[in-house]
């Protein structure tokens, strides 16, 4: 900044040599600045020339967008028709066809809540109540049974709402548990500390799929006779238990980032443990860990796709099951690319948000 200030006043305006500015200068500096880089550029350019045109041809020029399955079989290009033809099943699974406006509204509500929450000026106490209200409305919309809405069994939930529900609700419910675990791990009481350490390390050491297996085959055995939880709820419990261990580690990072002076000052003004944590430590520690928490939300969002393995109809499973339809057999790449795009857009948006937040919250300490 200071350099430009000086340059404005004292140095004559001499333009740099033509070869180092403009398009040619840019090319020289970024693509051909040494013989090795020049060679590399040529090789990459050739490789791209070999790959891109056939791909574009497949995806856009020769592709079909609104045809039937058999027409696709005859064509050379991509068969994107598989998406519009099965769009509502991919999105909503076995949710009753006439009622699908309800999960659609629930998704819109959730997405607008998420977008609303990303602005820091909205980070007030009422945001918490808005979220509670929003989640209740979403629950009512999905489940029905009151206000003249036809009840829909949770076993019929599927598609994108299920994916979003499992990840967002999983993170929300796992957060308090994660905070308790993190505090427990920092505790001076050996029994409580070791309980938390064992839990966190145990969960982090095993793959999510083993917990999902547990939820589908072992949880039913844990419950007393006559009580049963449906499979979505059991998977949700497994995801919460899993995510909590990762949140605990993130929160622990925040707690360790607090300087000792904060604890001592709190003690000096006579606050007890709970007051210290609630009023002094956690508000600061949790602020530090917002960006890594968004990363956990991203992984939770991606990891919910694992419920495919215990046969829940999430976004990935609904897509996979239309591929079993003989009319649409053989178009897996198109269908998977579509779902990949949904996941990518969501995760990319969230990770950019997390990076932006990290820059904003970075107070330089």
């Amino acid at each position, binding site marked *: 900044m200071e350099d430009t200030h000086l340059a404005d006043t004292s140095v004559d305006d001499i333009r740099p040599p033509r070869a180092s500015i403009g398009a040619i200068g840019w090319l020289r500096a970024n693509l051909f*600045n040494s013989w090795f880089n020049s060679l590399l550029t040529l090789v990459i350019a050739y490789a791209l020339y070999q790959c891109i045109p056939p791909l574009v041809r497949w995806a856009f020029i020769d592709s079909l967008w609104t045809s039937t399955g058999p027409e696709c079989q005859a064509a050379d290009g991509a068969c994107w028709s598989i998406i519009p033809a099965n769009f509502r099943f991919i999105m909503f699974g076995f949710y009753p066809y006439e009622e699908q406006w309800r999960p659609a509204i629930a998704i819109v509500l959730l997405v607008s809540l998420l977008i609303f929450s990303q602005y820091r000026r909205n980070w007030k106490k009422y945001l918490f109540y808005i979220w509670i209200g929003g989640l209740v409305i979403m629950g009512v919309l999905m489940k029905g049974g009151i206000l003249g809405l036809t009840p829909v069994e949770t076993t019929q939930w599927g598609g994108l709402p299920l994916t979003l529900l499992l990840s967002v609700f999983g993170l929300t419910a796992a957060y308090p548990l994660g905070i308790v675990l993190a505090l427990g791990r920092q505790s001076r009481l050996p029994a409580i500390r070791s309980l938390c350490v064992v839990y966190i390390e145990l969960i982090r050491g095993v793959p999510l799929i083993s917990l999902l297996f547990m939820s589908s085959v072992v949880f039913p055995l844990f419950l007393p006779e006559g009580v049963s939880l449906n499979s979505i709820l059991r998977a949700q419990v497994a995801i919460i238990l899993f995510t909590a261990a990762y949140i605990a580690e993130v929160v622990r990072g925040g707690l360790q980032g607090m300087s000792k002076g904060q604890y001592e000052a709190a003690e000096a003004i006579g606050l007890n443990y709970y007051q210290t944590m609630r009023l002094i430590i956690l508000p600061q520690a949790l602020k530090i860990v917002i960006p890594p928490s968004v990363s956990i939300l991203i992984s939770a969002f991606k990891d919910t796709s694992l419920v495919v393995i215990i046969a829940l109809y999430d976004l990935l499973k609904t897509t996979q099951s239309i591929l079993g339809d003989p009319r649409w057999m053989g178009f897996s*790449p198109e269908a998977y690319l579509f779902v990949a795009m949904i996941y990518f857009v969501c995760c990319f948006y969230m990770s950019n948000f997390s990076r932006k937040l990290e820059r904003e919250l970075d107070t330089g300490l």
Partner: protein
Amino acid sequence: MPQTQPSLSGTETPSKASLWYDPKVRAVLYQIGAMAMVGMLAYYLMSNTMANLERQAIATGFGFLDKQASFEIGESLISYSSADTYAKALVVGALNTLLVAFIGVVLTIVLGTFLGIARLSSNWLLSKLAAIYIEIFQDIPVLLQLFFWYAFFYEILPGPRQAITLFQGVFVCNRGLIFGIPAAHPAYAYMAIAFLAGCVAVYLIRRWARQRQDRTGQIFPLIRVAAAILIGLPLITWWLAGAPTAMDVPELKGFNFIGGVSVSPEFTALLLGLVLYTAAFVAEVVRAGIQSVSKGQTEAALSIGLKPGQVLNLVILPQALRVIIPPLTSQMLNLTKNSSLAVAIGYPDFVSVAGTAINQTGQAIEGVALIMAVYLIFSLSTSAFMNWYNKKTKLVER
């Protein structure tokens, strides 16, 4: 607040109140309370489980391990048939998991390092391509990527008759990846021995070179000598043993390839998915590690007269690796844990074999416990190794 509280409760004797407000007593009480709650929860779950198991007449214990498994496993590193026991089937599964994890880790480190360096390249095209790769592959669930590659093998690739030739003798088709290997010859066993001997020799030379450098300051060209020994010794052995050149090349006979080595589509898809996904994360780790070494370090090293190779070896890498290794380890563990997704595309890894065992015997608790135990062993042994490594490479502050 401790001081005001006793006066509120009025009639209580001071000694009793002070006992309750004694931090040590409280600590013990809290801990007993927490343990009791966990114990009660465990007891409640156990008693429910016992009642349920009894009602459904499910056997308990690990006795089933000795029984006949009576299911086939598609791929196995050791000889296995459906007449073998569950225990052996599980060993086959664990070995398959280890195989895919080991090869996956090696390939991931290679690809991830390449991408990380490419991301920092001064070549705009290369750096942007690496950035696009990293962003795309990080943001798509690994399971979806596995499904994609699996579908790629079964739907896009042609049958063996129209197999695509990648290189001379390397084919891909919907039966997997098929490539030629040198035909069996005792020379290769000798070469392996020569290579091991070379490793020992390099280790000894390295120790000697260090001692000499400490004593006299003379630098020994270790890397060049080591490369010469590690490549030269096996080559000389190969030549002495008669220089066998015969290859076991796959040939198309009827509807399939005969000869060579064929890797199943399941394994290839799993490996491809895991490696491409994890490499994106490793690339970020490598990039952060390289960027963590400030430019002043390079300049200082150059100014005291080190050659560029020495700068990299003695100054940059030791500092960058200290930043890279811990997150790299956790990525490697992630890869190992994600290899359990093999069950979704039918590769017989440990989870998949244990899942079959659970379905056949109904002994879910034991099965899930085994799965968790095996992954915990992987994780804990890796982190033990990494703790040792971290301690060894820790910054010694003077």
